[in-house]
């Protein structure tokens, strides 16, 4: 095991009667990408806020590099870079000025911050927009500049709260590539996301968080292996199923060894612990006068592990986030 750079022990955060973070413990190893995955309201942002000093810890301890900084997280702020879930730079300042200003907050000299700002604008392909006001940037550009601002002082740890949420595909891909490159250079990355594919692609280890509690922490491979004992068939219908419960009941009656649940209105997920044949199921469903447009055996993924452990459907989680 690598050295622990962040460690949270029995963290609790109460807001009056409501417990946002409920006795969670975990650690982040130096140089890894650690992901916190969970639905809206799971406590992801609160957990980050507790670790960076934007929220007061009700009880528990936070260690950085083995040092207890629970009551003095300010001391850790020199080695951390923070990208909040919303861009929080200055609208009236240019991209370049924003970066230089952020550098000054960490005490970088004028020449250092100017050089670093130019390098970062180059890395994030924002050179042409360097002198444009931040408010004129697109959402993707804003996100990239916000990440650049968090890197101006070469932090050892980078916190990213929903780094690709609500931005275009190309920018999201570029941000993911940059996270990978940064990590390869030795930066520890702590990210929260509700995009399970993103977590699967980027993270070394993941913690599933739901209702303020950590359900499971493990490496991506181990989490996927948790679902390997399951055989899954996903069937997509051409139109929404009106009586989902009735269809599920019929399936269970016919195939007693399966459990099934609807992923969304027109997709059913059939899970079996023993090897499963797709054709009798498709045949049975066709007899119910339901037109099938796709049926496939599904390889276990992180999503399956997440659904299995939390009982939360990813599609619902995404919709919930989009609504927000």
């Amino acid at each position: 095991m690598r050295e622990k750079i962040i460690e949270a022990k029995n963290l609790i955060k109460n807001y009056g009667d409501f417990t946002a973070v409920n006795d969670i413990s975990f650690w982040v190893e130096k140089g890894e990408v650690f992901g916190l995955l969970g639905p809206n309201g799971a406590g992801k942002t609160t957990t980050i806020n507790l670790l960076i000093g934007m929220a007061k810890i009700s009880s528990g301890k936070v260690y950085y590099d083995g040092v207890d900084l629970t009551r003095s997280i300010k001391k850790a702020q020199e080695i951390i870079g923070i990208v909040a879930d919303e861009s929080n730079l200055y609208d009236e300042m240019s991209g370049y000025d924003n970066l230089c200003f952020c550098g000054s907050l960490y005490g970088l000299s004028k020449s250092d911050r100017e050089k670093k700002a130019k390098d970062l604008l180059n890395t994030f392909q924002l050179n042409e927009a360097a002198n444009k006001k931040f408010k004129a940037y697109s959402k993707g550009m804003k996100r990239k500049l916000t990440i650049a601002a968090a890197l101006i002082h070469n932090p050892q740890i980078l916190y990213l709260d929903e780094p690709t949420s609500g931005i275009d595909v190309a920018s999201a891909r570029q941000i993911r590539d940059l996270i990978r490159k940064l990590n390869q250079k030795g930066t520890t990355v702590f990210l929260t996301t509700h995009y399970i594919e993103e977590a699967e692609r980027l993270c070394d280890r993941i913690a599933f968080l739901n209702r303020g509690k950590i359900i499971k922490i493990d490496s991506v491979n181990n989490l996927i292996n948790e679902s390997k004992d399951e055989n899954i068939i996903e069937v997509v219908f051409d139109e929404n199923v009106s009586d989902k419960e009735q269809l599920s009941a019929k399936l269970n009656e016919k195939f007693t060894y399966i459990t099934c649940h609807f992923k969304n209105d027109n997709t059913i997920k059939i899970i079996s612990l023993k090897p499963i044949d797709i054709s009798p199921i498709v045949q049975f469903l066709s007899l119910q006068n339901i037109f099938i447009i796709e049926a496939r055996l599904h390889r276990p993924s992180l999503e399956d592990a997440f659904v299995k452990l939390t009982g939360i459907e990813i599609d619902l989680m995404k919709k919930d986030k989009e609504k927000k």
Partner: protein
Amino acid sequence: MKQNIAFWNILLKDMKNYYLKPPNISWGIIFPFAWMLMMFVKTKSAFHIEEVFSGIVAMSILFGTTSMLSVTITFERKSRSFERLLLAPLRMELLIVAKITGAILFGIFNSIIPVLFSVLYFKAVVANWTVLIIGIILLSIISTLLGLFISVSAKEVFEAQTYSNFFRFPMIFLCGLFIPIATLPVFIRPLSYLLPVTYGVDILKYSITGNNTLSIVLDLTLVLMFCFMLFYSSLFFIKKKWII
């Protein structure tokens, strides 16, 4: 050294982004000028500049600083850019001093027009220039700190403006700017002495006419005490309310 760089750049950023914007500069010039002109037109030949000098200076500072600071801080909190400052490895005290310094300098700038106009045009005689400068600086600090105190409670920019007006307008009448406290109804007078601006205005009066209500040492002590109280209570509430 690192903290100094951060302090200086926060101050420069605020000056450039907020205080040196043309609408604010013109406010700093037009507002006191308009008040002096109003006094002049109203009293015509019987115009005694020494009677209104301190009031106009105090009002220019008060109106220039309180809302400016509370609005800029509330605006930055709303746009979440203030979070960036809170997350920087900066002592909270230094961060707040950096934020208020811009407003203090703006308050001092606002006082220059009425001072120059009174001295050069109306030939006002200043009894003690050193005390006048100290008074202007202290009044700028206390007005700015009132703005800071307001910004702690405001969540929206309009709230910051409303709260500022709620404090500022009564102060025109309660703090002896134009109406001597001694002429106010007896039951209102204790309220006047609870307001820090009263003592700032008293210092200005002393610097111009050589006469004031309280002793200059008491005025200076009380203003400094209010500064200390407002600064640390604002700091306490910022830590309590903004880092939840």
